């Protein structure tokens, strides 16, 4: 009886905090709500609350801590479940999933052990090779040890050998080869990816960068990977930085970047049928059309929907969410996202969204290229 009363009290408190988070959102209300879910052992809900909170308050340290804790607890639960299933019926998919969870948790030893076991049992399945390559890449980028890098490239080569059109393996190869300075080899993988899917921003940005760097350097056709990896280890630095990394910019450069984005957003808002348009980067937002100010609920809607779509696509193993269209009695809501940039538009029912979506995609891609162009 006492337990039942306690539960009722907790549920009532939960209901109160849920509506408080919705009516007066702040990092504290989300953290309080997450704490109650932690006490109840409902890690799924803690994760949901922390991600919803972070979508609105991306710079909150408390919410970041809550999110990390929820992620870890959630991962441990899933690992326990997968381990039990693996002991019952070993399958290649299970080995891949388990190793991927260990990787997310940062337990590289367990990743290695799981992948080795998976590869030994199912040598023709690429899944374990791919996770092992990702783990080796993570340690290579962290410690810059030539052996880890070479091993990652070997595993990725295995993946491509078993599954020629594996987008993820080609992407990882394109990036690591670029960063150690093997530009021609990197270009080979990126060109292949462009043929497979021309609309991938990430590939397009890396491709442009490699072509630009190839034009600026006198890179020979012959690229000895072993030599290049050894060079990275001895110099203790990579030959090239990450493509998405931004260099510090002057205020004038930042202003001109924002100006060009504002103009492009204004053009999108001017398309017949478009009533609201927004461009959000981190905690900042530009607005056009029938939007009152930065507190307009449409901004929150764009942030939360983009975040939820990103999470769903990633966890369903479908990669990164990049665009989406929501249809209903309200008309159409187009959302485009890359990294921490979200661009969204609301338009009237019956508006043709193809052009709007293309313009939005262009806006997001342009903001990526602008920041990239000023990177030395």
């Amino acid at each position, binding site marked *: 009886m006492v337990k039942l009363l306690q539960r009722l009290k907790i549920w009532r408190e939960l209901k109160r905090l849920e509506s408080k988070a919705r009516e007066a959102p702040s990092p504290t209300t989300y953290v309080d709500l997450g704490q109650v879910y932690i006490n109840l052992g409902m890690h799924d809900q803690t994760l949901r609350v922390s991600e919803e909170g972070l979508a609105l308050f991306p710079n909150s340290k408390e919410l970041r801590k809550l999110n990390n804790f929820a992620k870890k607890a959630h991962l441990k639960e899933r690992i326990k479940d997968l381990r039990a299933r693996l002991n019952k019926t070993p399958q290649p998919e299970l080995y891949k999933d388990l190793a991927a969870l260990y990787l997310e948790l940062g337990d590289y030893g367990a990743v290695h052990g799981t992948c080795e076991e998976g590869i030994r049992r199912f040598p023709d399945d690429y899944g374990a090779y791919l996770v092992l390559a990702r783990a080796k890449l993570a340690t290579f980028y962290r410690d810059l040890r030539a052996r880890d890098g070479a091993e990652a490239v070997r595993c990725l080569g295995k993946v491509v050998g078993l599954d020629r059109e594996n987008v993820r393996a080609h992407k990882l190869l394109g990036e690591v080869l670029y960063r150690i300075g093997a530009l021609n080899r990197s270009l080979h993988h990126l060109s292949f990816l462009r043929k497979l*899917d021309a609309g991938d921003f990430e590939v397009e940005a890396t491709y442009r960068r490699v072509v630009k760097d190839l034009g600026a350097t006198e890179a020979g056709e012959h690229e000895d990977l072993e030599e290049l990896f050894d060079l990275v280890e001895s110099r203790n630095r990579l030959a090239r930085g990450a493509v998405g990394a931004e260099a510090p910019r002057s205020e004038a450069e930042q202003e001109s970047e924002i100006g060009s984005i504002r103009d492009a957003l204004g053009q999108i808002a001017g398309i017949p049928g478009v009533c609201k348009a927004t461009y959000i980067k981190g905690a900042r937002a530009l607005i056009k059309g029938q939007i009152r100010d930065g507190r307009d609920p449409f901004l929150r809607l764009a942030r939360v929907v983009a975040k*939820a*779509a990103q*999470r769903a696509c990633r966890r*369903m193993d*479908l990669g990164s969410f990049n665009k989406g*269209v929501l*249809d*209903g009695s309200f008309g159409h809501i187009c959302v485009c996202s890359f990294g921490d940039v979200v661009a969204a538009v609301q338009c009237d029912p019956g508006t043709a969204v193809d052009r709007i979506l293309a313009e939005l995609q262009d806006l997001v891609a342009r903001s990526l290229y602008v920041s990239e162009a000023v990177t030395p």
Partner: protein
Amino acid sequence: MSQINTVLGKLDKLEGVKGTALLTTDGMMVASTLGEEFLDDVVAGLSSFLISTTRRSLADASLSDRFDRFVLNSTHGKVIIIDLGESFLVVITNQFSDLRPCLEGVQRAAADLRRIAKIHI
């Protein structure tokens, strides 16, 4: 139930479709043709999370308490979610599939599923 499976099976044969699922609004899987690539409970849980979050955000923005269709594009696939009232149809395709013919097939399947639901009531 066999009628639902027939509709989903037909949808599954469309070019580029990797799997389909019919879910209740609270995330229970009614029927699915998801292959080994996807886990039923993962797709059900994440779709339900996405649907409820989207619905709540729309309601918070005073737009509506539901949506008709949500099409998502990601680097390795596309997801189409159709609101059927008491349930949701979720279709996963590969990233290269042409959505135009696929959406026609999905809308037809949605109409069939609505009709089947009415007969059952």
